[in-house]
Every structure is written in structure tokens, then in C-alpha cells.
């Protein structure tokens, strides 16, 4: 036998222990390695999910311990789906989702395209552009609130400077028409870099020889862009949209700090509404049903989208 460290250890350990260590089959090791993760996920993700489902059929209120809990069947679901206020929240969420995705895709792709021109120092500037997405959304929301202040904020000052309006004549966060756009602006500022990075990965995955072949065929730059660049980047772009979509459907921290859902409920996205029901009105059962509906919606939309994405990839 060779003098490997393993053999030295094996020789030094009592035979029974050694057999136990060495004798572990790969199967056993696999389970030992996976078990803690699965256990943690079961305890902190799956068990709570099942509990939520169970609570969603009751009228339980978490702030009244000891109160009798009644089974109300599907009444929570019924009330949510017929509640017109909740449809307003859904609309606010849809507005937010749609415009953040449109703006981030356009700006993100354009930036990636420009960065891919490989000018000098492009990686340093890329890093600087990426900084906002690394920061805490709650803290970001909080300081943008400062920038949006009508009389003293930098944002209003800059807008006033370029348009000649009076900086105290408009309130980004206080106006019913502007507030939905104020959250779109901040989210776009923060997350465009993410779309940009994914697009950049897509652009860099296109091999040079395809362009060279197109050049030999005398395809114009414009045609090359639409027939090579766009189709090749599309799967990446769609992935970026998927992630932004899921993240923004869950959006809470940034918007809660910026507008708190106001004015009125113009920026009250579903997560913020859910938080109100669950932790301010303490309608735990009702909020649980709400949470399940949201989860099913995200999951359903994401699954349909992934199917479409796979079709694009196959092409």
C-alpha cells in the first residue's frame, strides 16, 4: 500500500470507526449532503406554504390569540376575486411591470450593444453602471424620496432647470398621475444594469464568424443587426424579462419606502396591499388566501412564459 495521507489516517483510526467512515456508500453520502438543505427548505419554505394554504380557508386573526377559529371554506378566495379594490392593485402592479420592463429592455439592450463595441475602459464603466443594482432597495427608495421632494429635491430642480417649470409646481410622490411614474423611474434606474448584463452575455455569445460570413455575403450592417444580432440575443433578453417580471411582481421594499402605496392607493402594488391585510389589519386567513392567489398567478404566468422561451430557443 502506498503512503497516502488517507492510508495514514486509515491506519491511525480504530478499525470499527474506519470501516464506518470508509464504508459509507456514495448513496449514503449523497443523502447526508442533501438532507440538511432539504430539511431547511421543508421547514422554512414548504411547511409555511402548507400552513398558509390551511389558514386561507379560515377566519384566523394572528393578533387575537385564543379566539375561536372557524373554517370558512372558499369564502376568502371569493371575496378577494370579487373585490374591485384588489383589481385596482393588480392594475397598479401591471402598469409598474409593463413600463419597467419596456424601459429596462430598451435602455439595457442599447447599453449592452454600445459596451460590446469594446471601447477602451469599457469594463470599468460597466462596473460603475452596475452599482445601483447592488444596493439595498429600501435604502435606495428612502433616498430617492429625498431627491423627489417638491421644494428642495434634486430631481425637481433638474426637471425645472430643463423645462422651465416651477420646481414646487409638481410633486412626483404626491400626485396621483405622477406617482406611478416615479416608482417606474427609480426601478429603471436601479435594474436596467441587470438587463444590460444579460444582454451583454448574449451579445458576447455570438461567434465572430457569423458576422464575417454575412460580410462576405455583403449583407448591410442594418440587416446583420436584425437577422443575426437580435435573434441571437432574444433568448437572453427573454430570460432577463422573466427575472425582472418575477422580481417586480414581488416588489415591496423599494416602493414601500418611496411612496408607501400612496397617494391614495395609486402605487399600492399587490405586495404592499398584502402587507396591509396581513400585518396592519391582521386578517391572517384572508391574507393567506391572497398570498396563495398571488403565488399561483406568478407561477402560472412564469410557466407559460418559460414554454414560450423554450420555443424561441429551439428555433
Amino acid at each position, binding site marked *: 500500500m502506498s503512503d*497516502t*495521507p*488517507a492510508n495514514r*489516517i486509515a491506519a491511525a483510526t480504530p478499525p470499527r470507526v474506519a470501516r464506518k*467512515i470508509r464504508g*459509507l456508500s456514495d448513496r449514503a*453520502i*449523497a443523502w*447526508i*449532503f*442533501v438532507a440538511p*438543505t432539504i430539511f*431547511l*427548505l421543508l421547514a*422554512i419554505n414548504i411547511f*409555511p406554504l402548507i*400552513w398558509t394554504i390551511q389558514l386561507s380557508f379560515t377566519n384566523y386573526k394572528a393578533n387575537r390569540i385564543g379566539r375561536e377559529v372557524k373554517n370558512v371554506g372558499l369564502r376568502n378566495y371569493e371575496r378577494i376575486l370579487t373585490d374591485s379594490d384588489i383589481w385596482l392593485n393588480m392594475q397598479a402592479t401591471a402598469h409598474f411591470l409593463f413600463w419597467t420592463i419596456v424601459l429596462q429592455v430598451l435602455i439595457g439592450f442599447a*447599453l449592452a450593444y*454600445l*459596451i460590446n*463595441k469594446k*471601447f*477602451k*475602459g469599457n469594463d470599468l*464603466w*460597466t*462596473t*460603475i*453602471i452596475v452599482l445601483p443594482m447592488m*444596493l*439595498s432597495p*429600501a*435604502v435606495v427608495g*428612502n*433616498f*430617492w424620496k*429625498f*431627491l423627489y421632494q417638491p*421644494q*428642495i429635491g*434634486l430631481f425637481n430642480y433638474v426637471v425645472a432647470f430643463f423645462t422651465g417649470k416651477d420646481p414646487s409646481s409638481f410633486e412626483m410622490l404626491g400626485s396621483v398621475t405622477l406617482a406611478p411614474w416615479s416608482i417606474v423611474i427609480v426601478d429603471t434606474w436601479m435594474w436596467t444594469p441587470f438587463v444590460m*448584463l*444579460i444582454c451583454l*452575455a448574449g451579445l458576447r455569445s455570438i461567434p*465572430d464568424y457569423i458576422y*464575417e460570413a454575412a460580410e462576405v455575403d455583403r449583407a448591410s450592417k442594418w440587416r446583420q443587426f436584425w437577422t443575426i444580432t437580435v435573434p441571437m440575443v432574444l433568448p437572453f433578453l427573454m*430570460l432577463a424579462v422573466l427575472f425582472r417580471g418575477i422580481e417586480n411582481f*414581488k416588489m*415591496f*421594499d423599494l416602493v414601500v419606502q418611496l411612496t408607501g402605496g400612496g397617494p391614495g392607493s395609486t402605487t399600492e402594488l*399587490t*405586495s404592499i396591499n*398584502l402587507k396591509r391585510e*396581513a*400585518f396592519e389589519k391582521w386578517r*391572517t386567513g384572508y*391574507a393567506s388566501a391572497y398570498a*396563495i392567489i398571488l*403565488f399561483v398567478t406568478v*407561477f402560472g404566468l412564469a410557466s407559460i412564459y418559460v414554454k414560450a422561451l423554450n420555443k424561441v430557443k429551439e428555433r
Partner: protein
Amino acid sequence: MSSFSVTEPSKRSKWFAGTLVILYALITMIPLAWIMLTGFKSPADAISYPPKVIFEPTLEGYVNLFTQRTRQTEDFLANNPPENWRDEIVRQYDMVIVGPSKFGERFLNSVIIGFGSTFLSIFLGTLAAYAFSRFKIPLADDLLFFILSTRMMPPIAVAIPIFLMYRQLGLSDTHLGMILLYTAVNISLAVWLLKGFIDEIPREYEEAALIDGYTRFQAFYKVVLPQAATGIASTAIFCLIFAWNEYAFAVLLTSGTAQTAPPFIPTIIGVGGLDWPAVAAGATIFLLPVMIFTILLRKNLLRGITFGAVRK
């Protein structure tokens, strides 16, 4: 690449692209630069119109961030001369420092919970990723998808039962509770990323080690771990940044002993409304480490973002 390559952009288009990108980068930096400047302004300068770019820098914001102060009578102030520069700053407002604020504690909580959950996610995640990468596990794909899909839940939806569960177990507002929670959220991404990195390490290395008489455990930590070190490090950065930035769970499940900085910073209140310089100072101290980190580790980090996203 030869200078005749058709795919190499022309000098003019490079110059044009560079100018636009740099312009965007500079504009995108304005809000961050502004908040850092505001941290060094006096409250009056912070809310002046038009906004001041040139001002007399002061550490008032930082002093207010770290201390608690009370207003005192003129007699008291006359009899107790200021002892240091911090006292002198607050004396302008007829105030004295009575003790440290909670910011230090909250910041420390962020550090403890961030590093604790990162360590745990990486420890458990590496083991699971190795098993998924190297062994045949029944239903492995389903399990992996299940692990990942737990990320689709809105945090508030998860927070309802977690809140009830933690109340029962006495984990509310504890470091352990938050570390476990953040680990559970992070581990899905960690397993997914790490599996990708471990898949890239050739199996032959371990097989050679096994033939040399290493046990599986030894092969794992003497051969695979060193090879996966870069991947582990970039995964760890992601976990750390998530835990550092997290707000929704923190605001719902912690209120005192285990509260982290993000729910605390927006609540810093001065005399007559929000004390913007102090809030700005808090934001600066909290965000700066992440920014420096990002710039220093940009290669791993940027690759990690695209790698993680594209593999899914």
C-alpha cells in the same frame, strides 16, 4: 484579432459608443453622489433651494447618526463647556450628547446576520451542490426545480406563516431566526450556482484521488473544494449582498435586538421631521461597503450574475 477583422468596430463607432456609455454612467451616479454629499451638509444646507453643490462640509450628519441628544437650558450649557468636537457641533443647537444611538447596534446586526447566513448557505449549499453534481439522486431535476421555485414566492406571503411559526418557537427578533430565514432564501440560488461551478470540474480528478485511497470525504474537501474556490467565493458574495440588503422580512420579523440597518435607516428622525443629513450619512455608511466590494470584485461578480441567470 487582426486589424483587418470585419467584426472589429471602427474607431469612430468605438468613440461614439464610449461617449454615450460614459454619459449614462455619469448620470446614473448623480443620485448616489448626491446622497454622499448630503451626508456632509448641515440640515439647513441639505434643504436649501436651489440645491447646493458647494457648501461648508460638516460632520453634523454623522454625529447625529451615532448619538442621542437632548436640549438643555442655558445655565446647564454655560456650566458644562463642550469636551470635544462632537459636543461643539451639537452645542450650536443648545443640545448635549447623552449617549450612543442605536445605529451602531443595527449595523452590527446586519454584519452578524449577513455573515452568519452566508456561511451557512455556502456550507450547506456546497454539500448539496456536490451531491447533485456527482451522484444519481432520484428525482434530482424535480428537486432542483422545487428548490429554485421557492424563490418565486413574494416575501410577504412567506412572512405570514414564518411570523406565526417564529412566534411559537420564540425565534422572532432573534439573530438565529433571521440567519436561518436568510439561509433558506439564499440556499436555492447557492445550490444552483455552485452546482454549475462543480459540474465544470472534471470528474477524473476525484476518481484519481479515490484510486489513490482517498475516501469520498477526503476527495471532496482536498480535491473538489480547492478547485471550486472561485465559484464558492462569488456565490458567497451574492448571498452576502442579498442578506445585507434585505428589508421585507427584517421589517416584519424584527423590531429590536435583531433589527438590521435597512429598516432602521429610514426611521432616523431629527428635530422637526426627518434628519436628512443623518439619513444620508447612514445610507452612505451602509451602501459604501457594497459599492467598494462591487468595484474590487467586479470580474467574479459580473460573471456570476450572468452565469446564474443564464443557466436557469
